[in-house]
């Protein structure tokens, strides 16, 4: 009962080609086949947002997308956020500066949701940001420091444009 597909995609700037089982979702493919374990799986039914990655510029729950559907797509995960020489993305820096994480499990999904959102909405205010991350559950922080981090990062990202 095992059907496979061949996929070609770009992940964090690198071309990848692989044979995947048809039923394998994108999160499992990234984690187990490409060993990009920064993308976390928290609920596997598309509610917690921990597995969020950016596919062709749009935040996507990688537990609700088959790897085969990513054929031809450009995918960015948390491992692709910092620059190649290790300089942190403004969001990563802001999460660190603002204590925007505790256990860190939801953090990659939070940042991938926000990176896509802030690119589209560079002037977002607190309410906008709370709505934007309403599909990402964090059990540790109470969200406030995540919101602070997002507001900080938005400012840095605006200044860079």
């Amino acid at each position, binding site marked *: 009962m095992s059907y496979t597909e061949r996929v070609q995609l770009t992940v964090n700037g690198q071309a990848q080609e692989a044979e995947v089982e048809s039923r394998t979702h994108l999160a499992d493919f990234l984690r187990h086949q490409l060993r990009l374990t920064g993308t976390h799986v*928290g609920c596997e039914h598309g*509610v917690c947002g921990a597995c969020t990655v950016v596919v062709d510029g749009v935040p996507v729950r990688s537990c609700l997308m088959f790897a085969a559907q990513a054929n031809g797509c450009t995918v960015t995960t948390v491992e692709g956020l910092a620059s190649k020489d290790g300089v942190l993305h403004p969001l990563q820096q802001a999460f660190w500066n603002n204590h925007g*994480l*505790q*256990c860190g499990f*939801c953090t990659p999904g939070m940042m991938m949701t926000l990176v896509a959102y802030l690119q589209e909405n560079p002037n977002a205010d607190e309410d906008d940001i709370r709505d934007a991350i309403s599909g990402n559950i964090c059990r540790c922080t109470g969200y406030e420091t995540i919101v602070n981090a997002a507001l900080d990062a938005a400012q840095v990202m605006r200044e860079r444009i």
Partner: protein
Amino acid sequence: MGVRYFGAEVRRVEDPKLITGRGQYLDDLPIAGVVHAAFVRSPHAHARIQRIDTAAAKSTPGVIAVYTAEDFGDVARRTLPHMVPVAIVKQPLNYQPLAHSEVCHVGVPVAVVVGKTRALAEDAASLVNVDYEVLPAIIDWRRALDANAPRAHSGTPDNLVGALHGRFGSVEDVFAKAPHVFAERFETHRGGCHSMECRGVAAMMDPFGNGLTVWTSTQAPHMIRRLIADHLGRDERTVRVIAPDVGGGFGPKCAFYPEEVVIPLAAIELGLPVKWVEDRHEHFLSTTQQRDQSWDLEVAADLNGRLLAVRGRCIHDNGGYVPYGLVAAVTSLSAFPGPYALEAVDIKLDVVFTNLIPNTPVRGAGRPTTCFVLERLADRVARELSIDPADVRRRSFVRKEQFPYPTGMKARDGSLVTYDSGDYHGCLEAVLELGGANFDERRTEALAQGRYIGRGIASYVEDTGLAPFEGASVRVEPTGRVVVQTGAASQGQGHATMFAQICADILGVRIEDITVEAADTALFPLGIGAIASRTAVTAGSSVHQASLAVRKKAIKVASELLEAAEGDLELEDGVVRVVGAPGLNVPLGQIAAKLNGMSGIPMFQGIEPGLASTAFYEARKTTFANGTHLVEVEVDIDTGRVKILRYIVGHDCGRLINPMLVDGQVRGGVVHGIGNALFERVQHDEQGQPMAVNYSDYLLPTAPEVPRIEIIHIESPSPLNPIGVKGAGEGGTIPAAAGVIAAVEDALRPFNVRITEHPVSPARIRELIRLGQAD
């Protein structure tokens, strides 16, 4: 030595790896050749297993093995050892690793399939055929002690797990003389932990020798090692337990679970590394939760509304097994009398079996529900006597000058429970001042506009820094790097940063020069667990003591090397130097190299080798944190929706090691409590089938529902430990549900609503308004 880090908002040393995707949670560990397990779990709340047919599963391609209790002999039939074995547990009925003949809640593991991939193992698990004889189940804990109630375990005389009784003072006299006595019935419900990382276990036999290594997403690696060794009949030295990065714990990851024995058994049997990662559905079915309580209480008050005494009874739903002693129930009882200087308390608490998931501590343990009933009683007195709820607290709190204050309750070792320090009035007045004195006017104005706003306050005391110990060793390497090792595990609290701060100040190094290693039984010999808000007090004090010993040793050796008196030396920037002659110095790393020895060269006389020290700070007495929360809400009476307008926390956990981390603990805790007040309910039907097994049905707080949380710190140092700290992990949660519910009730004043339960859903709020209007 100048204080540079202790007390400062230092950024976390844990973060760089976590924000770049380089964390290593259990499912991220690159274990070569690992195979994957999936469990077959009971679909019934109570049933007898008649036959298990594994033939179809075994013949599925990709399946390596299928095990039931039969395959592991006695080791699978023995019930698991108890985490906290105590005599008050009358019927200590615990899980078997795989259920052999009877299952006592939905989700109990009955078989395990090991396959080449998790997906293949899950496919095959669905082909394991189990014949069950369904037995009557007890689901309603309030009826569990009825003579004709179904027994949660067949063949038992009744459903009583244990009966607790806490009392002090002349209760009958106080009630007989009290001018005011009010009775109230409460029902409290607390949900699960819902750490964003589910549980998981991996195990392998070492390639040489007889060692077993177990990785588990736990709060208590040393306890888990002890229990695995105990159950498997091994010496502890042959079992290594490692907690890798752990994605949240909140209590239930401290329990000892069947999977923590079954996965090692499968790894031993197969000679292969085996891994199991809980999925969210399994989390709802198998990770312990905090369960229901019902309370019948009376409160006695004087003419001015000063609280005098509380008495009554609680029935506490234990669920189907007792893996963790009676910790949740005991902490409910020992949370009396809260911040109040009561003259008498008499509480009976019956712990009963039901055919539901076990009740073990979730953030706050049994304290939040006791806080809820005490605070609701205080509000009831205020309401009946038409006085300000703050005045009831002012008149009833333990006063600052009364510390150390023996409450009258007895601790587990028979000693008197004694509050060490605090300023309960200070926290209360601070939040009231920030909250503003004009709330009554604002409420009246809002009401004129058809808006229903309310304010609630809730105060608490939390016993923290639980006995017995958590040790630490501090060692300087020849490179000058300082290594701190401890048994204390971490699930996101920022312990590594906190330990590094404490150590860096004493050794005069930067926190970047310190590596903290924890939660691996091979690195540190003993440990208890990251529970009960205890790590800062216990491990923090040990790091302090070990660092001081290393400093003393470094100065002593440097005095020999530099030929200077110890009193003339200072330790700064990782270098011991002569005061006033900075050219005369020796770096810590060089001292460490000397102390590591060289063949044939004698060492310094009377000085042990190694620039290192190990300390076990012994927590003989409990430190008590405290605080008051103030909550403002608006209730939409048409939809029942509650919006939290403002949330203020007055918090006192003694000296703050890192205010940023303490704030993080407080905020996260408060939001957990908001979930308990308004959203989270683990519901079952009459057969014990869970009605909420995903995040569409079980609601967790998300960012838009959560307010900013304003925090005021009051610092009453604990006199009991060298760094003056108290625990901060659970104080956010403890009074939150009480405060939110008080505010909702206050908002609904015009409808004569009294709320004696939580959580309250929008539908329930609408119902309460209707019932209040009908009265």
